């Protein structure tokens, strides 16, 4: 046994030496977040300012909401930034996080094939639209990945008076990210629920899809339940190995008016509208 352990130990030591070398002085914040904040480019626009100001490095782990929360539960992240209100509250209630703060919101839209086989265009409420899709048995693509978007979709099915994740041939549970799900919907002519930001960012490669519910921008949205709030939660320092102090600093910085202003302008140049709308307490009270 001893002989077999030695190479393992050597490999671990080598791996440790690779990771450790450069980060002697710089503090590292482990941020677990959803793909939407990272893929949209928002974090790249925001984080350098934080890193410069606090001489810290932010390691972003961009995963599904489910995994981001699991990382927090395991103490493998210092702070989480996600969008699944009920699960965020449960995360705090179960003692995994200290306190949840509002950060920003964007909104969801329902997109679908331009020929609209379920004739849903013009229906104002998302839940009614889902009911209509079910009646027409039109193909619906679900993220099916326990993400924040998937959670929202489930609650919409419930509002529509149906079981979530319908077990039917027209309901395709993909278990993939938003981008892949949109590509799928575009290819096969399916409806899907998406956050507006990803749809805008991917717009050019989705010629077969158009917004069915939600209008051209958040101001034209006809269904308030489609709002998509993001929250930030420092992980409970009791888990050990958590840089609670830096996490607190990060939350304060992220919700500060100055950072919120950056959020408000992000994406306007490219898409003619913001991808995220600031919504922190400090911003609302400014």
């Amino acid at each position, binding site marked *: 046994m001893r002989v077999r352990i030695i190479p393992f130990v050597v490999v671990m030591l080598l791996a440790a030496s690779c990771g450790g070398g450069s980060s002697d002085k710089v503090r590292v914040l482990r941020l677990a977040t959803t793909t939407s904040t990272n893929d949209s480019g928002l974090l790249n626009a925001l984080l350098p300012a934080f890193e410069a100001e606090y001489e810290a490095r932010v390691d972003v782990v961009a995963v599904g909401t*489910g*995994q981001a929360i*699991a990382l927090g539960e395991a103490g493998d992240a210092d702070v989480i930034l996600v969008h699944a209100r009920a699960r965020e509250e449960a995360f705090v209630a179960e003692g995994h996080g200290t306190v949840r703060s509002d950060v920003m919101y964007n909104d969801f839209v329902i997109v679908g094939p331009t020929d609209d086989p379920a004739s849903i265009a013009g229906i104002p409420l998302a839940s009614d639209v889902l009911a209509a899709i079910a009646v027409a048995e039109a193909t619906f693509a679900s993220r099916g990945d*326990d993400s924040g978007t998937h959670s929202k979709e489930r609650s919409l099915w419930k509002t529509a008076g149906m079981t979530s994740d319908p077990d039917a041939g027209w309901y*395709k*549970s993909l*278990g993939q990210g938003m981008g892949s799900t949109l590509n*799928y919907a575009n290819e096969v002519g399916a409806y899907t629920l998406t956050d507006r930001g990803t749809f805008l960012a991917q717009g050019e490669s989705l010629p077969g899809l158009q917004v069915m519910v939600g209008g051209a921008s958040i101001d034209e949205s006809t269904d308030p339940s489609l709002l998509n709030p993001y929250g930030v939660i420092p992980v409970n320092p009791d888990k050990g190995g958590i840089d609670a102090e830096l996490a607190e600093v990060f939350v304060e910085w992220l919700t500060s008016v100055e950072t919120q202003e950056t959020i408000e302008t992000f994406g306007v140049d490219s898409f003619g509208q913001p991808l995220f709308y600031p919504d922190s307490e400090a911003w609302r009270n400014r």
Partner: protein
Amino acid sequence: MGTLGRAFTDALGLLWNMDAALIETVLLTLQVTLVALVIALAVGIPIGAAIGLTRHLPGRWLIVPLIYTGMGLPPVTVGLFTYLVLSNQGPLGGLGWLFTPSGMIVAQTIIAFPLVVGLTMAAVQGVDPNLPVQMLSLGATRRQVATVTLLEARVGVTAAVVAAYGAIISEVGAVMLVGGNIEGETRVLTTAIVLETRKGNFALALSLGIILLSLAFLTNFAFHRLQVHQGVR
């Protein structure tokens, strides 16, 4: 430790209960893997043998490096290529194979094919070059020479089969892209593992991984028995 331990009990539990969704996923995994493997072998072994047996192959200087490169093809690239070809705008969009097991089989076959050709070629080249001469002198036809040489190289050819099988069954990038990981339609073990990991269901993901490994082990065990049975030592 908790997650690891739970993964093993979960895996046993899933198998014990014959979870319907799991059985479906396992069966599809095997179906896609085996069909792709059979196609890759049926086409790849003769081609690999032909390249290995042809002494003065024109263009060998180009063909062989191309095959070796193909053996290291990034599966995601193959997936992307297959995706674009099978997409509505692609040349074979009319087949309607995107997001179906057929499309996944296409991608997996492309991934396995260079492995089969390259390893078969190497195995055949490893056979004593005097063997074909001896067989010809015993009155063998060209085809018989090829067959005898392949049988002689069976250890290496079996390695080609095993490598191709391993590459396909453990592949995730291409089947995710081309299949779409649709529940009940194109979800295989690897894409299910990715999904459960993303959901934060680490124990379930790991137990799926254990099932995948067990499948691979059982198949490789069978391959090995076959090798031993062939009198290889």
